[in-house]
């Protein structure tokens, strides 16, 4: 069980693809202008990641080392095509907004990275969970950046959610700062994405170092001159 715990914490926090590995930055920066765009691309990426991890794990003993990367890319491309067709079928407007960034999921290094670093060495269930958690970590960062950029840049939150959740979501849009808010344009422009991503990375690092400092403070300090207790047998 501890193995799965490790996978979950790696994907969501310790080895987060967007905040720690800094992989897949191109979609991260390009489509996070609003929550709905970020969520759409995040879900698509997660779907591809889970699918490709499972498939790569299935064939991991049949593919030789020399051709493994082309094989992985083919698998990822196949899943990306599936996702693209699904989006065309069910969320056509969002598909048009995200445009080139859906086919570009193929080139997202986070996905190829997981295929090569994890799925090609592990069995199916851990690989699937790893894909899900890495995708979830990526999705969370994407949505966080999208929310920050949308609220600062245009003063709304959850605008146009009907593109993803159907007509009932039309009323989800929240006007944050009143009608008079002019919008701080730099937040929705590319520099805003870099700024917000950088701030989130800084925030994560500061939380980590804070936790580390607290853990160090809580550790029992040995007094100088205290004697070591000799133990025998195993401690469970």
């Amino acid at each position, binding site marked *: 069980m501890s193995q799965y715990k490790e996978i979950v914490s790696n994907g969501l926090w310790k080895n987060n693809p967007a905040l720690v590995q800094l992989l897949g930055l191109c979609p991260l920066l390009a489509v996070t202008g609003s929550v709905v765009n970020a969520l759409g691309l995040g879900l698509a990426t997660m779907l591809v990641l889970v699918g490709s991890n499972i498939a790569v794990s299935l064939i991991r003993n049949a593919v030789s080392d020399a051709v493994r990367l082309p094989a992985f890319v083919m698998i990822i491309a196949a899943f990306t095509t599936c996702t693209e067709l699904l989006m065309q079928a069910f969320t056509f407007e969002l598909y048009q907004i995200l445009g080139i960034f859906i086919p570009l999921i193929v080139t997202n290094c986070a996905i190829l990275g997981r295929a090569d670093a994890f799925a090609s060495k592990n069995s199916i269930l851990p690989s699937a969970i790893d894909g899900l958690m890495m995708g979830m970590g990526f999705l969370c960062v994407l949505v966080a950046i999208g929310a920050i950029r949308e609220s600062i840049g245009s003063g709304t939150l959850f605008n146009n959610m009907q593109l993803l959740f159907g007509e009932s979501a039309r009323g989800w849009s929240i006007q944050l700062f009143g009608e008079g808010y*002019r919008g*701080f*344009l730099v937040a929705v422009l590319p520099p805003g994405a870099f*700024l917000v991503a950088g701030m989130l990375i800084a925030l994560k690092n500061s939380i980590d170092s804070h936790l580390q400092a607290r853990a160090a403070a809580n550790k029992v300090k040995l007094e100088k001159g205290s004697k070591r207790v000799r133990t025998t047998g195993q401690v469970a």
Partner: protein
Amino acid sequence: MAFIKITSPHAHKPGNTGSVMQTVLLATLPGIAVLTAFFGPGTLVNILLTSLFCLAFEAAFLALRKKRIAFYLKDYSALVTAFLLALALPPYAPWWLIATGSLFAIVIAKQLYGGLGYNPFNPAMVGYIVLLISFPLEMSSWPAASPTLSDGAQLPGIIATLQQVFLGVPIDGYTGATPLDLLKQNQSQLISDLYANTSAFNQGRWAGAGWEWVNLAFLGGGIFLLYKKIFTWHAPIAMLASLGLLAALFYDGGSSTSSGSPLFHWLSGATMLGAFFIVTDPVTSAVSVRGRLIYGALVGALVFIIRVWGNYPDAMAFAVLLMNFAAPFIDYYTKPRTYGHKSGPKSQA
């Protein structure tokens, strides 16, 4: 009798950042005076507000970074950033615009990178660009210079200024197209007709009413700084030379598609402010003499290119930021040869 041998450099008193920055502040005074004379008290309010915000942000972030607040505030660098930002912003800008610009200049462009000396980009220009791309309407509404005002109209008084800045009560009919705007928007008039027909030009002598004097005042301040040896002549002169050279090359004698004469480019917009107060920033520009020549010349070229073929009427800030990117690269290839070493970066490895 003992002669104490001292090797060069022979500094006769210790220099420090604070006194250099104070001299720079002093040198902006003629420009500030002329801007106030032509555009009213808006510039002074700008300076007051940017100084207030910049110093406050600087102090707050020094406190957060656990640095000595008084020591770093006394180097006057935040105040220089504040002055340059204030001079670049249009007078009568609303207070929230000024606060946002100061925030980006001091916090994002300076303190987050590690404070004075570690900032790769000129803080004032970062603040200006963030505002320019975020709030194009406010940033492009320059007031009309006093000679171009219609009969009976006057420069805004101090009450009207404060109302505009803090309450958003608009002052009637105070905005006007700058000479650079007019040249950019010019569709069909010959340059000579444009000069004769528009008050922004025919009230002026060489390059547009008001603006030519603003630029000459900053040129005067720059010459004072050169005399004080605050910086060397290389970067500003290279910048002005390349701007003038390109303007001369592309000047077609004044047709309707003309891009303006060298004199026009030298004396309009932020040319002189940029050449002597921004291109010469010791932190963000190239270091060696050759590097400064290249850096300045490329800034001048970019200013001309963006002014003539770009979307924005003036280009100083964009040109400087783009070249800030390139400054380390220029430095790498223009390392001066040290005595006993062969020249070129590769042989020094």
